[in-house]
């Protein structure tokens, strides 16, 4: 098996899988053409990631990294969330095969995109308000 037991465990039992219908921020990265597509939904309260969920089309490591980032990010402040890197995700899973490091390790990017989407929405609200 090319994957660590930790990767397989997250693949078997992904945490926080699903959508948040009234999400405060949504981040989508990847492309079905490349074989990996990830969407992260966040709910923000008092500057913290109160809830986070994901939906992923992709290989085993794409699903495992998505699951792992929801664990790493949940409860953290938005600043802390922005600081989670691809390397943090891979390390928390006990490593990923080299070929997967680029394409299937997009979860950190998806989280950052969701947080940026949240900021954008806040700004839009201020302008309107």
């Amino acid at each position: 098996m090319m994957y660590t037991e930790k990767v397989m465990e997250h693949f078997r039992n992904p945490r926080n899988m699903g959508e948040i219908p009234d999400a405060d921020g949504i981040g989508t990265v990847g492309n079905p053409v490349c074989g990996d597509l990830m969407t992260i939904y966040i709910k923000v309260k008092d500057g913290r990631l109160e809830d986070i969920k994901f939906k992923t089309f992709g290989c085993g490591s794409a699903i495992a990294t998505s699951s792992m980032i929801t664990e790493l990010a949940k409860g953290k402040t938005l600043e802390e969330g922005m600081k989670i890197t691809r390397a943090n995700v891979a390390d928390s899973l006990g490593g990923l095969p080299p070929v997967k490091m680029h394409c299937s390790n997009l979860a950190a990017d998806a989280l950052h995109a969701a947080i940026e989407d949240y900021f954008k929405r806040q700004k839009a609200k201020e302008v309107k308000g």
Partner: protein
Amino acid sequence: MDHAAGKPVEPRVTEAMLPYMESSFGNASSLHVFGQEAKRALEDARAKVAALINAEKRESIIFTSGATESNNMAIKGVANRNKDHGTRIITSAIEHMSVVNSFKFLTTRGFESVFVPVDKYGFVILENLEKVLTDKTIFVSIVYANGEIGTVEHIREISKIVHSKNAYFHVDATAACGQVPIDVKNENIDLLTISSNDMYGPKGVGALYIKAGVPVEPLLHGGGQERGLRSGTENLPGIVGFGKAAEIAKREMQTNSVQLTKLRDRFIDGLLKPIPYSFLNGHPTERLPDNVSVRYSFIEGESMLLSLDMIGVYASSGSACTAKTLEPSHVLLAIGLKHEEAHGSLMFTLGKENTAEQVDYVIGLMPAIVKRLRAISPLTPKELNV
């Protein structure tokens, strides 16, 4: 159920090989008694391989290290030796990488490589072949049956077209040989690639059939073994095993094929019927008896493989993620699949020891696996435009 990647060696083959690994250590080029015994075994194996494809004589068979070498030798050897005839060489869009990369290499050496497209089933489009085939074409190389999607090409018709312009015709029969009857005389094939392991023989040995009179330049120069076309001391145990495998294949192919085809169709039916948005890759009937290649929309192949692997079922996928490259298989793209469709492919290659019970077991597992992965996936019918 991933026999295309490697088949178990037949016990009868192993048994035939053993004496040549333990005590018959002769070199077929030696004059003494051990050498002569080795020579006899070598020629006996050559005759068996020749008989399997109905070659006119056993000398037409050149033993190699496997299908990759045979394809390289046929393509580079015929191109280089017949440069004065022209520069165009033609193949199809669904060839094995040993063919694709040999053609690409020759492009850097001044040859003009043309890749003929295939239709949605994977059949070479004959009109397109006719269009690009010129009097200056050296040869055409086409796969007998693609191992990934199983489609068996219309070799006889292609052969007629190729020979109408006096080009040579090379056929890569790696996946097909031993599964479907091949007759190089009747089908008018000039060069044919055969692999030992694909017919339950040992790995590391294969052959190239070269019709008498077809000029080929060797890849390996040395002591002049194999009529000077493939130097290097013969891999005798491997060759003896290959010969035995060919003998068994010739005798048992018919029975095995009927059985495998039945199993294959039961499998395909069971994988597709209960699951919406599922499709067959390749042609439903004109396909190799062992090949089951399907795809499921909205999910990715490797995640299906992992799910099966966890329960002890081993398959393969056309997906990028399992391979060394991140691109989906060129074969699946060539039959017109979109990237995301190609990524959702799952391939089983059945072997003669697989049973109906095993097939039914996997059929029973798939709906839950697909359902779970689709629940995780953000894709829906609308997003994939199906």
